[in-house]
Each structure stands twice: as structure tokens, then as C-alpha cells.
């Protein structure tokens, strides 16, 4: 059991750490304040070769796997949760191709993503289908050499800036999860439009919107995987990205704690530094314990993906990591904000942004409740398997 990072991973992580500290941190407050998508940060990622971290070198990626992506997202999320999400989207939007794409699709979309010439998004959620993903109602009807798609997706991260849309739709209406197919649709395809752009509590730098499909004609070769077997693709996609969502939480929690501890070294009350007050020291200890526990859950889950597993038999590992790390992020942001007292509530200090940004982590990409469903199912079925 080797808990060390390879030299390659350590080198990449250190590079990202510097980038995050020098170029992303100074922009984080502004990104939140203006809600403007940080194109400059995207370009910085592109220049540093970070857009293809988890993808194979064959398609222009860095070949550092999901673990590599987790490490990078962790470093970025210490300063800016929105920027961390931008990196995550490089995997979320392309995972379906990994698990079911044709060679042509991989060359086009994975390579495009790695090179920064294409930005994608993953379109599953609908107004009537959040946790209940199998009840999506977007329809895809085969008509000759095309599929015609109709429906509305909502809460899609990155949609307003996306070049391609990976869309889950029903090719067999009444078949539940057995009637789902996945398609990739290029921006500009007639019948695909961006709808309402949401105003959110936090993570304001990444725009979230509706994606509207009205008689959208998609060439048959844009089907990803096999017709009616798309649900498995969707699940593999979500499962394999879960460790990266967890990494967002891990990074945010560390960033919050780091900032708060430094503050407590400066701030005095009752004749001593805040960090010399026992109650506050113990609060820091609680935070550190949870962060360390989350860390190893995240890295372990990432390694499982890199070993080639993303199916039902290992899903609980990803769920445990995601549920735990996202909840640690929320608790840590809460406690760290409290260490700043009144200043923690003021926008001149970053903690209130961390607090707002953290909260979505328990909801997106499978709520904490759904994660508990997955975990408990594995327990009761006997799949939970202490490797």
C-alpha cells in the first residue's frame, strides 16, 4: 500500500498549486462578484496543459487519470470553487465517450477537450427528473439517418459556454431506464437552444442553464454507445466523476481552514491570539481530522476509476467519497467562517463565498440522499466489499 504520489503526479500538483495561488486566487472574489465566466482562467488551464489531465495521451491528454484530475481540482478549489468546476467539466462532458464512444467521437470530442478547442456539458437533469434520473422525458425518435430530439434539460453546468452537449434521452418512452440513449449534439445544430440562465447562491463563475431541444435533428452517428443501453453509460459517467466532485469539496475545505488558521494567528482577543484559545484549537482539530479522512476516501475512489472500474459493483466507494467530502466541505466552511467572527460574514473576506460555494456540493451530481441510497443498497445487497 503506497500512500505516496508518483513524481509525475507530484510535479503536476505543484504546478497547479502555483497556478492556483498566483493566477486564480486573485480573481476568485471578482468572479463571484460579477458572475462572469472566467475565460482567462480557462486559457490559463489550456496553456498549462490541464484540460486533458484524466485523458489518455492518445487523444492529447496528460494520461494522469482521475487521480491526477482530482489532485488538480483539489488545488484549484482551495481558492476558487468555480474554477475547480471548470476542470471537472472536462471529464463530466467526455466520460460517456470513454465508456461507449466510437473512435471518431473520441478523436473529435476528447481530443477537442484536451486541446481546449471544444468545451462540453452533460445534459441529464430535467425539471421533472432530478434525483429520479430514470424518469427523464426528453424523447429521441429515429427518423431515417437522424434522431429527432424534443425536451427540456435544466440546471446544466457550463451549457451557455458549451460547444457540444452530451444529452440523455428516451428512445423507448415507457421503458424507464431501459429506454435511455445518449447523444452528442454540436452547438449550432438547429433545434438546440440555451434557455433560462439561473441565478445561484454561489459558484457563480460557471453559468448554469436550461438546454431546450425542439425537433432537433441529430445524425445517427451522434448516438453514443448502443441505443436503449444509455443508462449504463450515464451511470458510469456519473460514477467516474464522483471522486472529482469529492475533490472539489476536499479542496474547498482545506482552503477554508488554511485561511481561517492564518487569520487566527493574527487576530487577538482576551489578551491572546485566537489560535491560542483551546475551544478554537479544538475546532481546527475537528476540521483537520475530517479533511484527512475525506482525502483518502477521494484518492482511493479515484484510483478505483483508474483501475478501470466504474460500475454498480464499486459505485458505493464513489458515493461514500462524494457524500463525505461534500459534507466535510459544508461543515468546514461553516466552522472556518465562525473562526472569523463578524468578518466571516463580510464580503471583503473569502469565507462567506466558501460557505455559499460549498453548499451546492451536497446537491449536485447526486444528492447526499441519493449517495446514501447507493451505499445502503450495496450494504443490504451484500455488494459492499471491504477490498
Amino acid at each position: 500500500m503506497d500512500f505516496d504520489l508518483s513524481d509525475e503526479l507530484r510535479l503536476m500538483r505543484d504546478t497547479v498549486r502555483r497556478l492556483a495561488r498566483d493566477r486564480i486566487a486573485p480573481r476568485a472574489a471578482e468572479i463571484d462578484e460579477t458572475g462572469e465566466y472566467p475565460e482567462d482562467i480557462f486559457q490559463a488551464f489550456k496553456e498549462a496543459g490541464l484540460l486533458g489531465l484524466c485523458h489518455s495521451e492518445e487523444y492529447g491528454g496528460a494520461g494522469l487519470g482521475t487521480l491526477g484530475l482530482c489532485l488538480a481540482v483539489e488545488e484549484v478549489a482551495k481558492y476558487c470553487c468555480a474554477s475547480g468546476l471548470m476542470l471537472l467539466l472536462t471529464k463530466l462532458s467526455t466520460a460517456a465517450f470513454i465508456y461507449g464512444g466510437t473512435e471518431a467521437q473520441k478523436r473529435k470530442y476528447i481530443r477537442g477537450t484536451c486541446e481546449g478547442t471544444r468545451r462540453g456539458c452533460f445534459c441529464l437533469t430535467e425539471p421533472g427528473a432530478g434525483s429520479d434520473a430514470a424518469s427523464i422525458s426528453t424523447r429521441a425518435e429515429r427518423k431515417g439517418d437522424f434522431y429527432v430530439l424534443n425536451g427540456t434539460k435544466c440546471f446544466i453546468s457550463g451549457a451557455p459556454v458549451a460547444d457540444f452537449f452530451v444529452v440523455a434521452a428516451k428512445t423507448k418512452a415507457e421503458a424507464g431506464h431501459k429506454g435511455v440513449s445518449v447523444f452528442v449534439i454540436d452547438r449550432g445544430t438547429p433545434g438546440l437552444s440555451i434557455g433560462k440562465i439561473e441565478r445561484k447562491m454561489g459558484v457563480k463563475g460557471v453559468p448554469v442553464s436550461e438546454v431546450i431541444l425542439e425537433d432537433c435533428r441529430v445524425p445517427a452517428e451522434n448516438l453514443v454507445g448502443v441505443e436503449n443501453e444509455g443508462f449504463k453509460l450515464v451511470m458510469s459517467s456519473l460514477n467516474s466523476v464522483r471522486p472529482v466532485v469529492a475533490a472539489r469539496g476536499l479542496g474547498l475545505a482545506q482552503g477554508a481552514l488554511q485561511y481561517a488558521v492564518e487569520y487566527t494567528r493574527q487576530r487577538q482577543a482576551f489578551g491572546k491570539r485566537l489560535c491560542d484559545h483551546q475551544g478554537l484549537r479544538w475546532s481546527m482539530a475537528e476540521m483537520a481530522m475530517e479533511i484527512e479522512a475525506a482525502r483518502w476516501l477521494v484518492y482511493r475512489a479515484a484510483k478505483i476509476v483508474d483501475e478501470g472500474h466504474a460500475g454498480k459493483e464499486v459505485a458505493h466507494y464513489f458515493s461514500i467519497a462524494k457524500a463525505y467530502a461534500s459534507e466535510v466541505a459544508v461543515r468546514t466552511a461553516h466552522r472556518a467562517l465562525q473562526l472569523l467572527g463578524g468578518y466571516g460574514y463580510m464580503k471583503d473576506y473569502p469565507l462567506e463565498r466558501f460557505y455559499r460555494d460549498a453548499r451546492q456540493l451536497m446537491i449536485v451530481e447526486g444528492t447526499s440522499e441519493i449517495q446514501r441510497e447507493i451505499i445502503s443498497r450495496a450494504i443490504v445487497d451484500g455488494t459492499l466489499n471491504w477490498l
Partner: protein
Amino acid sequence: MDFTVSEEMQAMKRTVREFVDGEVDTYARQIEEEDRVPEHLLQKAREMGLFGMSIPEEYGGLGLGMLDRCLLLEELGRAPAGFVTVMATNIGIGCTGIVEMGTEGQKRKYLPAMARGEKIGAFALTEPEAGSDATNLKTTAVRHGDRWIINGVKHFITNGPIADVVTVIAVTDRQKGARGGFSAFLVEKGFPGFHVGTIEKKMGLRGSQTSELIFDNCEVPAENLLGEEGRGYASALRILGKGRVGLGARCVGASEKLLEMCTKYAQQRVQFGKPIATFQAIQWMLADIAVETAAAKALTRQVAWMIDQGYRCIKEAAMVKLFASEVLGRVADRAVQIYGGMGYMKDFPIERFYRDARITRIYEGTNEIQRLVVAGELLKEFA
């Protein structure tokens, strides 16, 4: 032990609730976006006498006791917190000093206008170097003939930019420190040398302004000393203590509103072919919200009653603030989760409740300080 709420108070509660749920709420988004409360809502509140809840009838207020005040604050707690804060600060820490420690002259000068909501009150204790460590004050007040000259900076003062009369705590004798060396003063907007500094941008509480107050050789007439010279710290603690129970009532009101909203939403939202309210885990979340809210409500009302009876209640008031604010925090968090993705979107009020709730565990004495107060009293009681 009679827990009945009088007919009269039930009627008043209904009136306030109709105002809050029916009228104020329709402006919630506007208040949030403009960071300003529409004047006509404040005017309506004035006409209802809400600004003078805690001011005795002889000075034009409603003269409500602590319990009755809390019954109405429960209803006000349902409204956007920024809106309530303008009034609640006025009723609580903004005027308590004058009501409890003011001379007849001071009471007659300020209270009637405050009761009518024409003059807004604020309380200025906190400084950049004195938050929880409230005895570490730097603002000084020096006697000069028939005036006091105040110098210093207060910050994080709720209602700061709109206050007409501020209760200011300053050092009058540094040697004595908090015990005998602090005094309280009533400073009016317009006194020479007094002005508003930076207005803070906050996570929530939009519509309510929080700012620095700057005293630059500020001249205060001698008759504006509030209470006895040297007794300022005790006055401050008394003012804060009274405010704690009112804050508890507001937290209870907000928690109740969230409970209603979540329960209704869970019955409407369908996933997996049924309303999410049929799922066990969601039912448990609703139950936990209800139980904690009921407990906070009972504690708040009981302590409010004790204050009306004349009991000391230092420990109890701290317990109320501590408990009710933490309950609200947990309730708001569960509410976000029950609403799922919608709970994160500004189109729904839930995310605002979440942001507004966060400050309740910090201001008016952080919950860490409240715990120290409770422990301190216990250690004395059981020495």
C-alpha cells in the same frame, strides 16, 4: 403553568402575519436585489406600532412585555431578515438603553419619536479590535465642561447608516477598565464630529445596512450620558441580554416558516413516481425540523416569561440565543436539501433564508461567547 396565548395577542399575531406573509414577502426579491427596504413597507410597520413594541405606552409605544414582544417577533421572523432587522434593532438594542437606564428627560426626548419609527436607534459597542473581546475598547469619551468629546471608530453597527440616535459605549477611565471605566452615551445624527463610515457588503441580511461609525472629536452634551458614569459595561451587557431573547423569537419564526414551506414542497415535488414527502428520510428531516423548532419556541417563550416576572435570566437569555440560532441554522440547511437543486437557486427564497440564518450564530454575542456565559453562570451556581 398556563401556556395559553391571549385572544388579544392571537389577534395581533394574525395581523402581523398577514402583513409579513401577504405584503412584505411580495417585495422579498426587490429587497434582495436593491439592498433596500421600500419605504411604504416601513411606513406600514410604523402605523402598526411595530417600531415601538418595547417602548412603554406612556412614551407612545405598545408597551409590550418581553413575552408579548416575542410572540410578535415570531411572526416578524418569517419576513426577509433585512426588513425585520431595521425594526428589531430599533426595538431591541437600539432603544433598550434609554428605556431601562434613561432619565425622564432622555426618555421624553427620544422614545416617542422612536416609538413612531420616526427616529431609528442603533447600538454601538463593537470595534475592529473589540468583537467578542468587548472590554478591549479604544473609543474614548473625555469630559470638557458641559460636553463629552468622543473619539474612536465603531464597526459592524446594524442600522448604522440610518440611525438617528445611537447608544455608544466608550472608555471614560482607562485605568478602571470595564469595571467602572466605561460609560454609555446617546449620540445623535448631526452631532458635530459624528459620521457614518464604510457600509459593509454582507453575505445576507440584504436591506439592512451595517457600517462603521466614526467619532472625530464628536461633541455630546453632558445630559446625553446614559446611566451612571462608569456603569457603561454593565449597561451594555444588560442591553445585549435583553436583545438575545428577541433574536431567539425571530429565529423561531423563521424556522416555523421554513417548516411550512418544506412540508408543502415535499408534498408537491414528485420523484420516483411519488411525492418526496412519502420517503422515510424526508419525513425524518421534516420531523427533526419540527421537533427542534418546537423546543426552541418553548425555551424562548419560557425565558421571555421569566424576564417579565423579573428573574435575572443571564444564563437563560444566552441559552435562548445559542439554541434558537443553531436550530435555525440546521433547519435552513435541511430546507436547502429538501428543495434540492431549487434550494440553491435565487428564484426560491430558501437560499436567502440559508444566508440570512448564518449571521444569527455570530452577532449579538457569538455562540462561543454564549457558551462561556452559560458555563460561567453554572460554575457560580454549582461552586
